[in-house]
């Protein structure tokens, strides 16, 4: 059975390592913060200018001067630091952030990502997405395997305007964990009870399947 967005976040959290600096995008990626494994320390970066982001504030303790990149009220953890947005993207560009987790509308076999614009719809802007995907050294995409119409979001080529090229390293969807490998989708794990056949049928790009594909562990 396909997993839900909380399980996607939980599975991605297993990719975290002790000492990692991590940037979590809006949506499912934000949920990853709730599943950081015990015993490891991870520092969350918010690209508007903060290292050491904590949970939402308790009711009544919201501080309008303290928000994340999604413009949500947040808190800081001990040992946090504030800086301006140029330094914030500077540290991202310099590869100091170990992992970036993003949502996507489409991902291509070679790791291109589209997540900022749908032609004909209102263009809201790319925000920091283009900087993040062009600069991050390790990018995991968190998304549903198919769009609401049931069409695959894992394509030979993106049809939507690109956010960045050859940048996605891994995808965790409601059906599978997939790695971008030699310009193809390589199946690493299946959601519990989901067959390789189902994943194949919902992946428009080339899917490499080698040997037995284990189920995701949480």
């Amino acid at each position: 059975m396909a997993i839900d967005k909380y399980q996607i976040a939980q599975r991605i959290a297993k990719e975290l390592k002790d000492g990692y600096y991590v940037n979590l995008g809006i949506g499912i990626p934000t949920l990853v913060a709730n599943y950081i494994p015990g015993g490891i320390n991870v520092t969350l970066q918010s690209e508007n200018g903060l290292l050491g982001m904590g949970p939402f504030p308790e009711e009544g303790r919201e501080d309008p001067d303290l928000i994340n990149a999604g413009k949500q009220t947040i808190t800081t953890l001990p040992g946090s630091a504030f800086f301006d947005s140029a330094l914030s993207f500077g540290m991202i560009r310099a590869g100091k952030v170990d992992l970036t987790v993003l949502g996507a509308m489409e991902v291509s076999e070679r790791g291109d990502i589209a997540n900022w614009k749908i032609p004909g719809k209102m263009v809201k802007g790319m925000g920091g997405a283009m900087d993040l995907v062009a600069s991050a050294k390790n990018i995991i995409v968190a998304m549903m395997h198919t769009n609401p119409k049931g069409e695959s979001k894992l394509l030979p080529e993106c049809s939507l305007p690109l956010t960045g090229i050859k940048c996605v390293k891994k995808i965790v969807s409601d059906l599978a964990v997939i790695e971008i490998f030699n310009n193809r989708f390589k199946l690493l794990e299946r959601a519990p009870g989901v067959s390789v056949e189902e994943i194949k049928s919902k992946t428009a790009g080339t899917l490499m399947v080698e040997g037995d594909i284990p189920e995701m562990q949480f």
Partner: protein
Amino acid sequence: MNKVFKNADDAIKDIQDGAVIMIGGFGLCGIPENCLTALVKKRTKNLTCVSNNAGVDDFGIGLLLKGRQVKKMVASYVGENAEFERQLLNGELEVELIPQGTLATRCMAAGYGMPAIFTPAGVGTEVAKGKESRVFNGKEYLLEYAIDAGFAFVKAWKGDKLGNLIYKETARNFNPLMAMGGKITIAEVEELVEPGELDPNQVHTPGIYVHRIFQGSHYEKRIEQRTVRPKKS
């Protein structure tokens, strides 16, 4: 030379129709509320605004849009604004979208006297169209030019009468960068103090980048996304 102005009306009084203004803030956080309100009141037209966001319908830069004062918006993200969308779709408003980190760094470049910077953001996308690109160490970068402007509006937490500024928390965001890009930078502060009252070790924007300063008032500090967790009992 006195940098201290009475209030926002006083500080912005020479801004003419057609001016280009860089504006600090991220979302509604750390925006120069007093300057924006004064500019709305002044009804200055045909403005080009450089700001990461465009406010919301009834706050921040949204108020300038409502008054049809903006000709062009240079920003990275302009959602949350129905009036903006209406003007854009009607062709009343011109928009230039720039990746957020590129925007931040281009403004900073002006303050560092660097005419251009290299960034990988936008390589292979429509942002790269018509732009020069160059490969360093096997990675492709776009050449992007510094952004400066006749005026910059910034909001700080504390400032002294020589223009030294200290920002609070994530309300820092684009403010120091816009301050560096302005030919005339106007800072509004929550607390204006005498020279010597700020710790020189903690100044975020040295006064050399600030030409006018005033004590702001009536800060609303509106929250865009109020997210909370339950109180511990």
